């Protein structure tokens, strides 16, 4: 039973359920307190969605709760006959809509600046709540629960059930590209765009979902307390909430619960041990805890691993007919130029990457290889033409090019540590492969199973996963940016065997940037040599490498 809970990450939900049911046995005060705990947990979860998942520091959560509470109060005061349910729904939807509106001008705003904007927003909301007050306040309106909800224990149970529902919904979203994309954004917007995912959409959705959860929490507060004021929704509380969420990893329900329990029970605990005087010190403890957690976060290390990948020494089995391989694509570059100020990183490059080939792109450091790949995949602005199977893609965004079938991997690995291999692959391939295909491709490449968390994998394996993910999206052209960097000789040899088989097994043309000339020799059918941004040679591998001016470029003319 415990194993089931652990495996499916249900600890938080189980505890929450227990809490919910406990209301039926404990006294009214305790039930009331526990309800506060659950509501705060929901707020923490909401912070978790923006900050822990999408990496956007949003300090607007408490304000969103305030908006939700205001909306709920308005409905309950004006249309009491509708009962509490429409009020709760409105409390969820209105802040979500507001979040969408707020998010739009801030799409290009990141990190710290976003924190400033959301803090300002919190202030504005607080000002509004202070000035306008809550609806019905002038009449002394206070909502009183009736019917089933009247008892504190039942309200607690409702909150707990809603909490479980939300937590499950978040997990469900996480399994789908919709929610997995949030982690992607936190880690690297470039990586996510390269999957063909709309980064803006992901940001806005994260904001909206978080606001909805916060709004619901606000609505529940109305049910619990009956009457609220702007004092319940101060901007500084957002900071406190943020610290709590960071300290307790509020991405998970269990973390959010811990944070909430800490908030509400620390003063009780301090009172119980005779330190009632010091109960506001709780915030100080959280601040220290948050510092500690952030410090740990800044040191998050990739597990070091000496030696080779698991299957390095063994021969590669024949690639099974895994997917219906499509037609590999042809990439044509016409006068492609990338200029940074006066320097030309890529200088009028014209070449064709032939259909179904594995073409190597080599050249000394600083020759412009990465700039070329960036330009072709859309990350850098360039002049000149890029055409995929005759279709000009030069003016398309990164995600549009990705959706057309042009995929790339990155020099600095971009596999997202917070996801499992399976989640990541499904995100990258936009949900395409079924479980069986996914598993067999992973196995063929020597990757660990779909359930392994990427954070536990070393760099070489993460690279393989990245490539597998790109392949499973069935691209027409795949750009590999130094995939073998840092690998030992046997590892890169095996990688080479995998790359060699890609065109036939996956119906995909490969452009391989590498420094490892032994690998290039083994794997590529054609070679392009760049120096100072220009193509100085192209053709079959052995011949091109033997050309004196190529040797010159690489070794600086030892042969001279």
């Amino acid at each position, binding site marked *: 039973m415990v194993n089931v809970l652990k495996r499916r990450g249900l600890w938080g939900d189980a505890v929450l359920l227990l809490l919910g049911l406990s209301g039926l046995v404990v006294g009214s005060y305790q039930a009331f307190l526990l309800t506060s705990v659950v509501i705060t947990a929901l707020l923490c979860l909401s912070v978790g969605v923006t900050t822990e998942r999408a990496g956007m520091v949003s300090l607007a959560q408490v304000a969103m709760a305030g908006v939700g509470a205001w909306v709920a109060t308005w409905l309950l005061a004006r249309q009491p006959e509708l009962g509490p349910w429409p009020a709760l729904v409105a409390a969820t939807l209105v802040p979500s809509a507001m979040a969408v509106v707020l998010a739009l001008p801030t799409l290009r705003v990141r*990190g710290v600046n976003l924190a400033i904007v959301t803090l300002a927003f919190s202030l504005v909301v607080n000002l509004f709540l*202070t000035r306008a007050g809550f609806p019905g306040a002038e009449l002394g309106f206070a909502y009183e629960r009736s019917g089933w909800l009247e008892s504190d224990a039942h309200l607690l149970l409702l909150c707990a059930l809603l909490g479980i529902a939300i937590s499950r919904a978040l997990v469900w979203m996480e399994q789908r590209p919709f929610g997995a994309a949030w982690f992607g954004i936190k880690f690297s917007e*470039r990586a996510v765009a390269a999957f063909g995912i709309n980064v803006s959409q992901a940001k806005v959705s994260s904001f909206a979902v978080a606001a909805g959860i916060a709004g619901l929490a606000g609505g529940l507060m109305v049910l619990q307390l009956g009457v609220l004021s702007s004092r319940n929704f101060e901007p500084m509380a957002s900071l406190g909430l943020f610290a709590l969420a960071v300290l307790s990893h509020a991405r998970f329900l269990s973390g959010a619960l811990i944070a909430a329990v800490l908030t509400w029970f620390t003063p009780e605990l301090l009172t119980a041990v005779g330190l009632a005087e010091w109960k506001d010190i709780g915030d100080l403890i959280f601040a220290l805890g948050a510092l500690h957690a952030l410090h740990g*976060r800044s040191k998050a290390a990739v597990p070091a691993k000496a030696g080779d990948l698991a299957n390095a020494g063994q021969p590669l089995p024949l690639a099974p007919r895994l997917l219906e391989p499509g037609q590999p694509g042809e990439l044509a570059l016409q006068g492609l130029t990338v200029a940074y100020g006066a320097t030309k990183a890529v200088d009028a490059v014209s070449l064709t990457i032939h259909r179904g080939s594995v073409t190597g792109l080599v050249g000394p450091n600083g020759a412009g290889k990465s700039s070329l790949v960036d330009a072709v995949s859309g990350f850098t602005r360039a002049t000149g033409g890029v055409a995929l199977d005759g279709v000009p893609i030069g003016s398309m965004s990164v995600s549009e090019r990705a959706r057309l079938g042009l995929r790339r991997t990155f020099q600095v690995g971009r596999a997202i540590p917070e996801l499992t291999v399976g989640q990541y692959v499904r995100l990258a391939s936009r949900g395409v492969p079924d479980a069986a295909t996914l598993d067999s491709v992973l196995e063929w490449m020597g990757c660990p199973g779909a359930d392994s968390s990427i954070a536990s994998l070393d760099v070489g394996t993460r690279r393989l996963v990245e490539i597998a993910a790109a392949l499973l999206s069935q691209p027409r052209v795949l750009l590999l940016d130094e995939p073998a960097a840092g690998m030992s000789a046997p590892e890169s040899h095996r990688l080479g065997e995998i790359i060699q088989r890609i065109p036939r097994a996956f119906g995909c043309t490969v452009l391989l940037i590498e420094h490892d000339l032994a690998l290039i020799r083994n794997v590529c059918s054609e070679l392009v040599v760049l120096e100072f941004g220009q193509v100085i040679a192209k053709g079959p591998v052995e011949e091109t490498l033997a050309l004196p001016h190529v040797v010159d470029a690489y070794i600086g003319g030892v042969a001279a």
Partner: protein
Amino acid sequence: MIDIIASGLIVGAAYASLGIGITLVAKMSGVVSFAQSAVALLGCYSGLALGAALAAPPWLGLLLGIGVGALVGALFGAVIARWFQGAELRIRSSATMALMIGGLTIGSRIFGDVPREAPSLVAHAVMDLGGVRLDMGLLLALGIAVLLAVMLDAFIERSHAGTRMLAFAQRPVTAELIGIPATRLTVLVWAVAGGISALSLNIVMSSTARSANFMSLSLLILPALCAALIGGFQSFYLTLAGGLVLGILEAFLLSVPAVAAYAQAACLPVILLVLSWMNRKEVWDGQRA
């Protein structure tokens, strides 16, 4: 009208001075300090409390406040320098949020809800300039803000230590490789910022001659951040201008009864405007592949 501008300038001077402190820390140690108002408050209120306890003249309370502010700043800076040296901007700035909470909690514990008043350093003197009455307090507050901008700018642009600090801010690893002491500099910068923030807050409080309790002033961080944002976290003069303009804007809003309650909300549209302008060309998260 003159009155509105005058009161706007006083408040604006507070925003500007605090903003200058934030700009100093951001420009020199690469982190946006959300804790600046907490540092200022701890310093300023300590000075006032000690000054009152010792029945000392106002300037002594001011000096004590600067001292405490510098100490608290140095402590915060040490935490950032030691624990968060190589971390990304987002994590470093989040750390300052935690520091702010810690600072505010301790502060509100020590100083409680008791409102304090900063004794005026110029005894509410008023100057007559060609028929226009100028409040000395206002001149002092403005003067300090301007002086800070000028002095800091001169120090950083002209002194050798300033050059080394700038170098460190632009490339911390390389700076260490040529012998620039990272930790020491970070702590120094934070200490200076802490001291000047406490100074500015004291001056402004004394100029407005109103009393306020500890927590109510903590929200000053927002307009201060706004001012620093206008300065791009780099330019002291732009931060000064930004703070003053924001103050005047607020004062104008305050004078219109219909929107007076929302005067402080002025910073949101200003922030959004500045950010849209700054980010008009940006697309991706910093690094290149």
